[in-house]
């Protein structure tokens, strides 16, 4: 107590006396501007520090800054900003005078500079105690990039992104420090300009052609990547805890570009790209297929005497039923696709009012015919300050329309399937088009009239119409008011609203539509989320050495989701398409829904820094969500003996860092930057559906009493009043280092992450109206190592080369599953694969563990032989041809041993060259495509197969059996992008102030032993399934040419 009693008066004295004290010394001011040395554009948010003093500030939107109270004399001023190299300059400050200075910062890759957005504020990088990585949009926005997720690929350690497939605007699996959730979401929280967005799929899911429709496209497609200024990834608990309940999977903060405030500047950038498939699967061509059938017919005839012809070779009729064409269905379905992207922006304003406006048009075609997406977007940003800068207001408004044109392919399941299944299946001796002998009309060739389970894939692509137009408006308005000195109050109101209409048409002319004689469907989805934040921020510096910042606030988020769908079948004509549902003779019962949920939060954070050497951050957030259980009561009513509500939870975090390089004993050493950090915190995962804890009745299960349909009403969800948050606790230790300033710098981090009370949809004891419910069951543990390094390879007057690298090592383990001995997952797709599962979630093993029979060899009669346990039926000498459940074992792991990325940034005179190489090493991929299509048996049904099957010893009638044979090493190294840019010299620029042209190549080369399209793939095949590849959209190789001009 004695200490406190002495301290408080001292503190009060310091507070009161701080200003007079500094006034007694002789000081001057520094005023200046910071610009991009290349573009000469003003740079905002640049940190300006006077070395050896506590004087610092950040530049305004027009790049200017004022620093008062600077001690007189020669001062070293340090200027740093994300994405640029630090600049140090000596400035002579005179008493009462103002020195003017201009800084030109040079753009730089990978490890980034100073002010970092950290959520509910920004911080100097060196004061950050948590694990935060930043990507500069200028560096990452190369080639064809349709959304923010793609900009992070290979550029941030600890972040693994798997694009679902090569579809334009495809969704992606983003995992920050590995996925720890089994059935709740593993997606991070996205925050755009301070407003957390609901990253739900904006488009309705679609109908699907004999199976599940393809996975949803990326919801972030609605945000133009050219408007993005920076992306910050918060990885560890101490950094993310400020987002509490929603932060368990990490947080991605996206900051958009703001107005510069100088005279009006106009900028144009645009590109044209051409894409082609990066690989073909190689199925038999017509001649190969014909030769194979001939060979099998000969074989069948030869052995008919010895054994029944039915079990040997093919009957002679197989030959006569072949067509005469020679169609390469892969090439018939793919083409050189064009993408164009145009951006125009202008920015301007004055000292108090600044604005930036931009327009974007993007049109991306897929490498497969008849699909792609278009984006039209307008964005407006404005800031205004008044009352001598005490009141600052801002507005961000984005309006976009995305037109999706879908290809009818499947996520998985079904052997009839869509375009890609039939691309492999459809007999290559048949033509794409045929002339009807009676009507002389040219039409698509089908193997028979009406409904068919094998369909002309080109006809599927061209005849089926499936589009979704999405409008999204994302806006936020904010105001900050300096109530008194050091105390700022802020309000931020955000609205995110999207509306999408999906229209689908299966014409009767196509075998898919023939089943119902035409099918038309329209479905709407509406998403609205609203955010309100109120914050109070107190910032001060006591007695020179003590930096304090305290933030406290309240936040309210509401999420509304609604939809409507109607469908009609049996059309007289194909002429209406999806535009006249009333013309269908059969109308399917329409459907509509509406659901709402809220999250309410109170948050607080305190940062304390001492002498710029020791930093401590504490965070406390209390979140309440409507979606969790209200608790149970022993007797209802009255509510007595209640267990209490599970809707509220507390998320704390604490972290600290020590900047060793600021200690006196480190002065003058080659190690110019050295810092250790450690943190610990708790976060939540609320990604469960609205009303997840309630018993709900739903309609839909109908029954025809006496032929009259009665709509049955029954429970559609079991109640679980004890449903609560999934909680992740994370500990993080890190070292940041710099050697000889920027020659070598980097970060090493270790973490452990433990998620308990997993939100898991599990089977419930019967009887229960629904066989499963969400429960909090089990525990998953992740631990990992991450490293990022930047190396200045060359630094000459006209040649500058920075090499960056990042390495991610992550280990995941299911610790327990509560009462469950295992959970099955990873549906195997294809004919004859019903009920087959590829993966098990097993305690002691990572998520994504492949589980099945172990393949040994193919025996002399063409049957597959597997290893078995002696006790199982049919097991002789440890071998069997009919493996049973007891013979199954762990046969693979879909997680890489490590992932890495290498970036190169070279500036040579007017040229700039960047390259990104990245890879995953050591993971297994289940090649489901090969399982089903690299055995010859398809010929029994006159279906085609992969050329690899010709040399495969498996017999014609041996079924496809899932086993370790189809688990392949999926290690790869990919040359993701090379970009060569040229800064146009003044003499070539007429009116323009600046110009750059560039050529870029995406996905140029992949080194892998994997046999399928691409080892980087994701199909949604059940709980936490990973690494399964089944006939999905091929990836593109893309060449881009672009230009950027500023006026």
């Amino acid at each position, binding site marked *: 107590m004695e200490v406190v009693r002495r301290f408080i008066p001292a503190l009060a004295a310091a507070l009161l006396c701080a200003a007079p004290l500094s006034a007694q010394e002789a000081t001057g001011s520094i005023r200046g501007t910071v610009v991009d040395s290349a573009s000469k554009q003003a740079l905002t948010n640049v940190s300006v520090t006077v070395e050896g003093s506590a004087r610092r500030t950040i530049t305004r939107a027009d790049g200017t800054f004022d620093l008062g109270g600077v001690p007189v004399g020669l001062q070293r001023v340090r200027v740093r900003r994300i994405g640029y190299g630090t600049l140090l300059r000596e400035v002579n400050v005179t008493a009462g005078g103002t020195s003017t200075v201009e800084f030109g910062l040079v753009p730089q890759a990978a490890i980034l500079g100073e002010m970092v957005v950290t959520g509910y504020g920004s911080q100097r990088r060196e004061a950050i105690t948590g694990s935060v990585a930043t990507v500069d949009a200028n560096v990452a926005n190369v080639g064809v990039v349709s959304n923010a997720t793609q900009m992070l690929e290979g550029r941030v350690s600890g972040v693994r992104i798997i694009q679902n497939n090569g579809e334009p605007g495809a969704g992606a699996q983003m995992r920050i420090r590995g996925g720890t959730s089994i059935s709740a979401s593993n997606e991070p929280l996205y925050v755009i300009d301070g407003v957390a967005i609901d990253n739900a799929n904006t488009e309705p899911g679609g109908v699907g052609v004999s199976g599940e429709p393809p996975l949803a496209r990326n919801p972030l497609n609605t945000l133009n990547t050219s408007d993005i200024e920076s992306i910050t990834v918060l990885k560890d608990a101490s950094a993310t805890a400020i987002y509490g309940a929603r932060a368990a999977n990490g947080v991605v903060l996206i900051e958009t570009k703001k107005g510069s405030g100088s005279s009006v500047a106009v900028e144009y950038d645009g590109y044209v790209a051409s894409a082609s498939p990066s690989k073909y699967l190689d199925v038999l061509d017509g001649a190969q297929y014909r030769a194979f059938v001939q060979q099998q017919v000969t074989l069948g005839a030869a052995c008919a005497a010895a054994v029944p012809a039915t079990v040997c070779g093919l009957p002679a009729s197989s030959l006569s039923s072949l067509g005469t064409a020679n169609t390469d269905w892969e090439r018939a379905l793919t083409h050189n696709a064009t993408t164009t992207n145009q951006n125009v922006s202008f920015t301007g304003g004055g000292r108090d009012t600044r604005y930036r406006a931009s327009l974007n048009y993007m049109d991306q075609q897929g490498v497969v015919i008849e699909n792609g997406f278009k984006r039209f977007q307008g964005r407006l940003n404005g800031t205004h300050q008044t009352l001598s800068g005490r009141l600052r207001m801002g507005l961000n408004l984005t309006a976009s329309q995305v037109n999706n044109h879908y290809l009818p392919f499947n996520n998985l399941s079904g052997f009839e399937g869509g375009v890609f299944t039939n691309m492999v299946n459809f007999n290559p001796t048949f033509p794409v088009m045929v002339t009807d002998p009676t009507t002389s009309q040219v039409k698509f060739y089908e193997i028979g009239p009406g409904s*068919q389970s094998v369909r002309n894939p080109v006809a599927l692509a061209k005849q089926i119409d499936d589009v979704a137009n999405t409008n999204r408006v994302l806006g936020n308005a904010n105001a900050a008011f300096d109530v008194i000195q050091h105390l700022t109050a802020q309000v931020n109101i955000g609205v995110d609203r999207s509306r999408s209409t999906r229209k689908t048409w299966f014409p009767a002319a196509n075998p898919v539509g*023939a089943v119902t004689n035409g099918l038309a469907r329209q479905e709407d989805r509406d998403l609205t989320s609203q955010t309100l934040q109120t914050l109070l921020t107190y910032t001060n510096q006591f007695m020179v050495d003590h930096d304090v910042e305290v933030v406290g606030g309240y936040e309210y988020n509401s999420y509304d989701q609604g939809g409507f769908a109607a469908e009609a*079948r049996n059309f007289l004509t194909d002429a209406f398409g999806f535009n006249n549902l009333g013309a269908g003779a059969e109308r399917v019962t329409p459907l509509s*829904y509406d659901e709402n949920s809220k999250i309410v939060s109170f948050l607080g954070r305190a940062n304390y820094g001492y002498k710029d050497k020791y930093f401590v951050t504490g965070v406390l957030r209390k979140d309440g969500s*409507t979606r969790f259980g209200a608790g149970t009561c022993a007797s209802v009513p009255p509510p007595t003996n209640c267990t209490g509500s599970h809707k509220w939870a507390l998320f704390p975090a604490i972290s600290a860092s020590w900047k060793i390089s600021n200690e006196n004993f480190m002065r003058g050493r080659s190690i110019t930057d050295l810092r250790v950090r450690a943190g610990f915190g708790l976060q939540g995962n609320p990604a469960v559906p609205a009303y997840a804890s309630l*018993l709900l009745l739903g309609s839909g299960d109908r029954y025809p*009493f006496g032929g009259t349909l009665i709509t049955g009403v029954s429970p559609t969800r079991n109640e679980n009043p004890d449903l609560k948050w999934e909680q992740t606790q994370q500990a993080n230790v890190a070292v940041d280092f710099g050697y000889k300033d920027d020659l070598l710098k980097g970060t090493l981090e270790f973490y452990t992450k433990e998620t308990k009370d997993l939100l898991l949809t599990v089977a419930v004891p019967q009887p229960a109206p629904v066989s499963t419910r969400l429960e909090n069951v089990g525990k998953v543990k992740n631990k990992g190592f991450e490293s990022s390094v930047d190396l200045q390879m060359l630094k000459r007057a006209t040649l500058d080369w920075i090499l960056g690298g990042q390495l991610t090592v992550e280990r995941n383990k299911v610790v327990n599953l509560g009462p469950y001995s295992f959970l099955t997952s990873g549906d*195997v797709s294809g*004919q004859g694969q019903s009920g087959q599962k590829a993966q098990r979630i097993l305690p002691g093993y990572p998520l994504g563990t492949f589980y099945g029979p172990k393949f040994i060899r193919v025996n002399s009669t063409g049957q597959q032989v597997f290893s078995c346990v002696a006790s199982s039926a049919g097991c002789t000498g440890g071998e069997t041809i009919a493996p049973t459940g007891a013979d199954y074992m762990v046969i693979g792991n879909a997680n890489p041993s490590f992932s890495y990325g290498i970036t190169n940034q070279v500036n040579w005179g007017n040229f700039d060259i960047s390259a990104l190489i990245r890879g995953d090493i050591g993971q297994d991929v289940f090649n489901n495509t090969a399982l089903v299509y690299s055995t010859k048996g398809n010929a029994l049904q006159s279906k085609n197969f992969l050329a690899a099957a010709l040399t495969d010893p498996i017999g014609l009638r041996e079924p496809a059996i899932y086993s370790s044979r189809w688990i392949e090493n999926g290690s790869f190294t990919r040359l993701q992008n090379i970009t060569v840019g040229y800064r146009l010299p003044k003499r070539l620029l007429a009116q323009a102030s600046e110009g750059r042209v560039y050529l870029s190549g995406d996905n140029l080369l992949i080194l892998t032993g994997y046999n399928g399209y691409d080892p980087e793939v994701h199909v949604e095949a059940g709980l936490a399934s990973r690494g399964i590849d089944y006939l999905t959209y091929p990836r593109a190789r893309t060449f881009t040419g672009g230009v950027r001009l500023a006026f």
Partner: protein
Amino acid sequence: MLLGSALAAGCTDLKEAPTSSITPENFYRTDAEVLGGVASVYAQLRATEWSYYNLSEVTTDEIIVPTRGQDWYDNGTWLELDHMSYTGSSPAGLGDVNGAWNDYFQGVARANVVLNAIADKPIANKVAIQSELRTLRAWYYYMLMDFFGGVPLVTTTAIQKAPAETRDSIFRFIEAELHAARAGVPDASALPATSHGRVTKGVIDAILASMYLNYQVFNGTVSATGLTKSTTARWDSADVVSTRIINSGQYSLRTGALGTATDWRSNFTSTNASSPENIFVIKHTHADGDLGINFIMRALHYNQFNPSPWNGFATIAEVYNAFDAADQRRNIFLVGPQVGQDPQLATYNQPVNNRQGSRLIFTTTIADATQATEGEGARIMKWPPDPQHIGNQGNANDYAFFRLGEIYLIKAEAQNELGNTAAAITNWVNPLRARVGAPALSPAMTQAQARAAIFQERLFELTGEGKRRQDMIRAGTYTSATYFNNTTARAPYKVLMPIPQTQLDNNSNLKQNPGY
């Protein structure tokens, strides 16, 4: 900022108020709402057409699902059922067996939800509705008892880890429930046309007759060495209940000449709702693409119907050949050169080809069940396609759990066991044979011969109707009979299905059945 503070105060209420879903508290208040609840309990009966049907048929000689090249391997599930090699965690154990467990218990749970919700609400016909729901719940328990033996007995709505009761106490619960409910439900003739398909006194009696028929099984004990039948039989009860149905005047056999609208086959056509022979049915309709019967899809070849069927389920030669050539009931099998079966297609009754381009021929034999061809195996087409079908499941043929033909055979079996062998054959077996052109059996046979003859008659009359597993267990041949793909006996404890591992995991009070 003032706005912010104002909003903040009212924004910590986290109570949920669903808008497009409903909760039991605010439902089941009007007759129509209650009927919606009742309909959902009936709707769950459709699920039995997959799990109960397949497990009752594919584990026996009546139906086999051979692997046909790439098709129908399905993780070995189908041949696992054929060989009875399933366990609680094998593909079939985690698949169809687990599906069966869930399907019937969901039926129980749906009935419990409505029964509990209406218990203290003043609704019209309350006793009738309660009796109807208790009957349906008893029927779901009957199927559980038949497959799994003793199971948890729960009549409340809370999800709980209830321990399993004995098979006998489940039997007695079902029996008591049915007796209690009988007074509350109408005779079939008293049902208005718009209620066709709902529970009647006949439904209750048919379930009871079936229970008494199998009493020695249900009251017996199962150990790792198999079933020991109870020494107590209830043939008298089976006789009384089946007589009550036959004498009720509510049902009659269809005996019209083949090809007429009242022939034996009319019990199975898309207009069979009007058949006076059907007692307890699952109602189907072609008014919607998903609410019909889909058995033909499992059996027909890809090229015989629109949409393309699945070409899976077949019958083995021994079963097909057991039928007398004169017996019209053999015509439910498709064998030999095939024609299109879809009345809506131009290929209807026209020759169709297989996928290799030659005429599709269904052979009676299957050379190798692991490597069968498209055309091998006779196909059951007992429920012919609905000319107005929509999609694959839009066939309106009702599926009968019980029809009068079977009640005759239950009566016959009871009579024979009670010593009236000649009457059993003459009065209750031969009438079924006469209407389908099968020669009459001589009543001059021993009780044992008659037992075998009635068992065989059940095969002819009820092929494909989901009775075979129960019949073979009662006859003692379920695990011991050898045929086609099963050249050796199966483990005798397979007379009970394994409790699926998933269910053992989530209810620690359950114990695995003996032997597994």
